[in-house]
């Protein structure tokens, strides 16, 4: 069981890390979601013990599995869900600004601004690039 869980954890975390390094912004968000889910699986694995479900009334003699990890996993799930939604909103906003969800287009725009900064020009106001297709 321990081996299976650690294998699953490794695969999920690895796929997430791979996706974060991709160019598409949506893939980056999916990667973040996978990585945070790997950490939730890790929390569950931390309390991995055989026992009855910890539901009241508790069985008399049998051992009960750890309920605290489940509370932690639930909390962490809710947090990662909310933050993923926020990230997706940012991706949409970037798509509106640059007309693309490719990291290269976004970083090209950033380089242009960095060069402008080096020439000592002030940063541009919002919406300058919105006209580009």
């Amino acid at each position, binding site marked *: 069981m321990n081996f299976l869980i650690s294998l699953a954890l490794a695969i999920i975390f690895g796929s997430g890390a791979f996706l*974060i390094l991709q160019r598409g*912004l949506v893939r*980056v968000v999916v990667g*973040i979601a996978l*990585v*945070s889910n*790997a*950490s939730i699986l*890790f*929390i569950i694995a*931390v*309390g991995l013990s055989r026992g009855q479900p910890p539901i009241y009334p508790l069985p008399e003699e049998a051992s009960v599995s750890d309920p*605290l*990890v489940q509370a*932690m996993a639930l*909390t*962490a799930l809710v*947090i990662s869900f*909310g*933050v993923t939604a*926020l*990230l997706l909103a*940012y*991706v949409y*906003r*970037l798509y509106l*600004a*640059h007309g693309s969800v490719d990291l290269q287009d*976004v970083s090209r*725009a*950033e380089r242009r*601004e960095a060069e402008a*900064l*080096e020439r*000592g020009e002030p*940063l*541009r*106001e*919002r*919406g*300058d*690039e919105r006209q580009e297709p």
Partner: protein
Amino acid sequence: MILLSLSVGLPWVIGAVFAMLNGRRPWVAWLAVAGLAANFLCISLLGARVLREGQVEMVAGDWPEGIGIALRADALGIAFALVSSGVILASMLYEVILGVRSRTFPAFMLFLNAGLVGLFLTGDAFNFYVFFEISMAASFVLTGYRERDQQVRAAFIFAVINLLGSVIFLIAVAGLYHLTGSLDMEVIAQRMSDAGSAPALLIATAIFVAFSLKLGLFPFHFWLPAAYIGSHAPVAAILSGAVANIGGYGLLRFSGHIMPEQFETGAVVLLALGSASIVYGALQAVSRFMPVEVMAYSAIGQAGYILIAIGIAGSVGYEAAVLYALVNSLNKGLLFLATGLRGPLVGAAFAVGAFSVAGVPPAVGFVGKLELFLASLTVGGVAGSAALVTLVFLGGAVSFVYSFQVYSRIYLRPRENPGKPDPAPARVLVILLAGLVLALGIWPEPLLVLSDAAAAALSGGAG
């Protein structure tokens, strides 16, 4: 007791109410300022009590000790909470004077304050993670405030990198729970010495990486310039003066209190990375042009000083680390706010902040540098302590160079197009902050007492 729950709970409740109101209306924004000020007052009163009577503790929901989730205010937490919420209050005032542009801005400032205060005052490792995520989520939104393209990009980068850090921290918390069977920081600290050294070292490494990401230390700094340069001046002040404190506080709490042995094993790594940060930050800052850019890179260097003090450890090292972190928050808050303004006397305020970063008396930065010098002298071995003293001195000299470069470039040259000066109240606020930095430099007693008590709380808890 009531003060403790008020300090953590007040910004929550007010924040939830303000999330439904339109923050662009001046009366709403001023009410939010009043809420933040009331919270600041609560924390100050709580701080006075903690300094007088020692640690204040409360277990939520009247559960018996060891079962319920504990809130625990000691001098270390209070010191960081006080400075962070002070910086947030000043930035909020600044933005309200200049005009809030987004309806959710006041609510997110309150949520950020709630998350930060909760994080500094909690006694539970998992709760630490939850508060950490609350304040991070609020700061992700705040980084994108004003919604210029570059700000949205900065917010995206900031969010992705910091989420990775949070995941690493969550894994470390789960590991601590597995090793010690508890989430209460006191209990973890007691049982840590019985834990096996290999897993404990792994967890310590994960915690170090997670907090270094927040603090923006050298190999983990890559997100920092983009986020600080992109964001609006008061937001940059908050990121650098309040949110970065999570990293400093977390490192101090976990290294000094919870797992001192593991961090002592890695002391050489801490010192080396701290030195690399100082050198890298200072050199990058000298070569930059815009004041915001210079200050962003300078923040990396300043984080290095804090790490060095933590690496030195012992009561002298922790005292220097706490003092330096507090002083740095004040400096950075003042500097980022000043870079956003134009008009008479703003240059003077900026100069006070810049010289405080460089450690020139009578500004408060001098006190921080002095403590750091004293701490470096206690390092074992003449060569090690000489190298550290030289490094701290050189770092100070270079920061003097870049501060003066920026000052002369921006304020000593007649502007071709001076533009309209910003409203007087905003400038008065920045000048008052500069006055505070000077006053604390001339009379550093309160800061010294606070950081002394914080260091004592750390080493007392470790025993």
